C-alpha cells in the first residue's frame, strides 16, 4: 500500500498548478463562460506544447506514454482551475475510444494530430429518451452499400460545437456501433445547450449523415463493449477533476473562515463553522482515497468497474456537500456572481450527472454486492 505520488507526479502537479495560476485567472474562466467558442485557442496551444494532449498516448503517436494516474493528477489541477474547453472530451473521451476500438490505421491517422492539439474529438452517447440503455437508443445507422446513413439526435455531447469529429454511438442492424463522424459532414448540426457553468454541452442532430464504413471504430455491433470501457475511465477521470475542485473549495473556505471577522472574532472560531469544515474535510479525504484508488486500478489495468462506481457515487455526493458548505460558510458574498465559489458549486452539479449519476453507479455497486 502506498498513498504517495512519485517525484514525477509531484512535478507534473506543480507544473500544472503553476501553469494555471499564471494562465487562467478566474476572470478569464468567467469570460469564457460567455464566449461562443468557450475556450482560448492560445491556451490550448500552450497545453499542447506541454505535451498534455498526448500524455497517455503511445510514443509512436507523439505521446508520452504516461499512466492514467498521471492523467488523473493533471485533470485534478484542471478541475481546480475550472479549465474550460475540450480537453476532457478530446483526451478522455476521444483518444481513449480510438485507442480502445480503433484500427492501427485509424490510430495513425488521428492520434498524432490529437497529441499535437490539432484535432478536437468528442463522444456522442446520450439521447433525449435514453442515457445508458442501448435498447432505448434511437439514433440509427442504416447500411447503404459501403456507407452508413446516420439519423437522429444526440444530447449532452460535450464540445461538439468545436469538435472536428464526433464519435457517434448508433444502432445498426447488428447492434450498437461506433462511427467517427466529421462534424463538417452535411447533415450534422450542433446547438450549444445553455447549461450550468462554462462547460459546453450540445444537441447534435444527424440528418441523413453519410459515413464511410471505413470510419467505423472497432467491430460492428460491439459498440456497447467499447463504450463500457471508455465510460468507466471517463467516470474515474471525472472524479479526478471533481477532486481538484473540491480541494480548492476546502482551501478557499478555510481561508475565509480565518479571515472573516464578525462579532469580534474570526467566524472560524465558532463551533458550528468548525464542524462544517470538519465535515468538509472528511468528505474530501474520502474523495481523495476513492479517486486515487480507482485511478490507480485503471492505470494498472486491474478490473475495477466496482471501484470506479464506488468512487463516482461517493464523489458525486461528497463534492456537492462540500460546495454547499463552502457557500454556507462564505455567506452572502459567495452568492454573488463575481465570487468564485459558484464555479465549483456548478462544477459539482455538472460532474455529478456526467458519466453516471449516483443512482446509476449505485446499481453497479449493488450488482457487485450480489444483489
Amino acid at each position: 500500500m502506498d498513498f504517495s505520488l512519485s517525484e514525477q507526479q509531484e512535478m507534473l502537479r506543480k507544473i500544472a498548478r503553476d501553469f494555471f495560476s499564471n494562465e487562467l485567472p478566474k476572470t478569464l474562466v468567467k469570460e469564457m463562460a460567455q464566449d461562443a467558442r468557450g475556450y482560448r485557442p492560445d491556451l490550448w496551444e500552450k497545453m499542447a506544447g506541454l505535451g498534455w494532449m498526448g500524455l497517455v498516448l503511445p510514443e509512436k503517436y507523439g505521446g508520452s506514454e504516461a499512466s492514467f494516474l498521471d492523467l488523473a493528477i493533471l485533470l485534478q489541477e484542471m478541475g481546480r482551475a475550472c479549465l474550460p474547453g475540450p480537453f476532457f472530451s478530446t483526451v478522455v473521451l476521444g483518444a481513449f475510444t480510438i485507442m480502445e476500438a480503433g484500427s492501427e490505421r485509424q490510430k495513425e491517422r488521428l492520434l498524432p494530430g490529437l497529441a499535437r492539439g490539432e484535432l478536437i474529438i468528442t463522444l456522442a452517447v446520450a439521447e433525449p429518451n435514453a442515457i445508458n440503455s442501448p435498447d432505448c437508443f434511437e439514433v440509427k445507422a442504416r447500411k447503404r452499400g459501403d456507407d452508413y446513413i446516420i439519423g437522429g439526435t444526440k444530447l449532452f455531447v460535450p464540445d461538439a460545437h468545436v469538435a472536428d469529429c464526433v464519435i457517434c454511438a448508433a444502432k445498426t442492424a447488428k447492434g450498437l456501433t461506433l462511427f467517427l463522424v466529421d462534424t463538417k459532414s452535411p447533415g450534422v448540426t450542433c446547438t450549444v445547450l445553455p447549461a450550468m457553468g462554462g462547460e459546453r454541452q450540445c444537441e447534435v442532430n444527424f440528418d441523413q449523415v453519410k459515413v464511410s464504413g471505413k470510419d467505423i471504430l472497432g467491430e460492428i455491433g460491439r459498440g456497447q463493449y467499447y463504450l463500457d470501457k471508455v465510460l468507466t475511465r471517463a467516470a474515474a477521470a471525472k472524479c479526478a477533476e471533481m477532486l481538484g475542485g473540491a480541494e480548492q473549495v476546502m482551501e478557499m473556505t478555510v481561508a475565509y473562515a480565518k479571515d472573516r471577522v464578525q462579532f469580534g472574532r474570526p467566524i472560524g472560531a465558532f463551533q458550528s463553522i468548525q464542524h462544517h469544515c470538519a465535515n468538509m474535510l472528511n468528505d474530501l479525504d474520502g474523495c481523495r482515497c476513492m479517486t486515487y484508488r480507482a485511478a490507480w486500478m485503471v492505470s494498472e489495468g486491474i478490473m475495477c468497474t466496482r471501484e470506479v462506481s464506488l468512487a463516482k457515487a461517493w464523489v458525486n455526493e461528497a463534492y456537492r456537500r462540500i460546495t454547499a458548505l463552502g457557500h454556507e460558510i462564505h455567506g452572502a458574498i459567495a452568492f454573488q456572481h463575481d465570487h468564485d465559489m459558484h464555479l465549483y458549486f456548478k462544477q459539482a452539479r455538472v460532474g455529478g450527472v456526467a458519466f453516471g449519476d449516483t443512482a446509476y453507479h449505485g446499481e453497479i455497486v449493488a450488482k457487485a454486492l450480489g444483489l
Partner: protein
Amino acid sequence: MDFGFTAEQEAWREEIRQFLKDNPPEKFPTQTGEDSWGHGSFSYEFVRLLGKKGWIALTWPKKYGGAERPWMDLLILFEELAYARVPWAAAAICWSMSNTILELGSEELKQEFLPGIGRGETILWLAMSEPDAGSDLLNMRTTAIEQADCYLVNGQKVWSALAHLSDHGFLFARTETDPNIPKYAAISLFLLDKSLPGVTIRPMTSMMGDIFHSEVFMDNVRIPKRYLLGKKNQGVIHLAKTLEFDRFWARFPKSAFCQKVLEDLAQYARETRRDGILLSQDPAVRHKLIESAIEIDACRMVFWNVGWKIDKGLPLTYEASAAKVLADDMGLRFFDRGLQIMGPYAYCGGADKWASLRANLRRWYLWTAGDSLAGGTSEIARNTMATAGLGLPKK
C-alpha cells in the same frame, strides 16, 4: 502510488484466514456478553491463542517476545480478525497501550509487562475518564501524590472498558495539585495493579444489558514508584497520543466488521421475500445496501490512508480524529439502515439461520450509539480536525 498488497502480505492474509478456519471464533467461550467489533466480546481463550501464535506481539522487538513484523502486517491482522468477528476486545485495546509501554517504560517495566501481554495473559484497561472529566479530560481530579516510597492515589474513574476482567490499568492522574500550574503540566501516567489494596471495581450495566465498562474507585492506593510511565507531570502528551491512537485503533477494524455485516444483510436480502417481493429487488432495500457499501468502502480507504501515514512516520495532526468521526457517522447510519431492512422482524426470536444476525443488529445498533462518544465525542473530534488540522482558531 499502490493500492495493492504485496505477495507476502496476501500470503499473510491467507495465513490468518486459515487460522480462523481452523479456530472458528464462535467456538470460544466468552467472558462478556458483548458481541460487537473491536471493543467487543472477550474470550480469554481466544486471546491466549493469539498470544501463542505470537500475533499480539507481532510488531514488538524480539527482545520482548515480538516478531518485529512490519506495522502493515498488524493492520492486515486487525482487518481479518474484525471481519471474522473474533472475541478479541482486550487484545485490541492492549495493542495501543503496549506501544506506550514500549516507548516510555523502564527496562524493568517492559520486562515485567510485555511478555504477559504478548502471551495474552495480561490484560490492561484504560483509566482516563472521570465523572467530571469526559470531553474535558484535563479536568480530572484523581490525584497521585508523591510520597517517599510510592504514589498515593485517590479518586475515581468511570467508563473503564473491561476493567472487571483486566489486571492492570493505564492510569492517568494528577501528580501536581498547585492550581497555578496549568493542567496540561500536572498529569502523569501509571500502571495500576488492580489487586492493590484500595482499588474497587464496580461494573456498569450498559443499555444492552451487558457489562463492559466499570467505575473504578481508588482509596489511598499505594502505587510503587517504578510504575510511573514516562516522566512525572508529562502524562498529557501521552494522553493525547493515547487518544489519537485509540481513535485510530479502536475504529480501524470497524469498516471490515461492517463489511461482513453488509454481506450478511445482502445474503439475507437475496433469500428473503416480503409481500411477494425478494428484498434484494426492493429498490428501497437496495438503496440502503448500496449507500452502506459506498460509505463502508470510503471509510476503509481513509483508514488505510491513515494507517499508511503512521507506517511511514508521517506527522499526523487531525487524521485520527477525522477517521474516528467518519467511522462513527458511518456506523450510526449503517446499523440504522440494517435494522430498517429487517423491519419488525428484527425483533423476532427464533433459532433460524438469521436469528443471530437479528440479535446482533439490535445490539450493534445500540452499541454504535455509544461509539460517537467513546474516545472523545465526535463534536470534540471535529473541533480537533478544525483547529489542529485546518488551523482554525481555538476559542
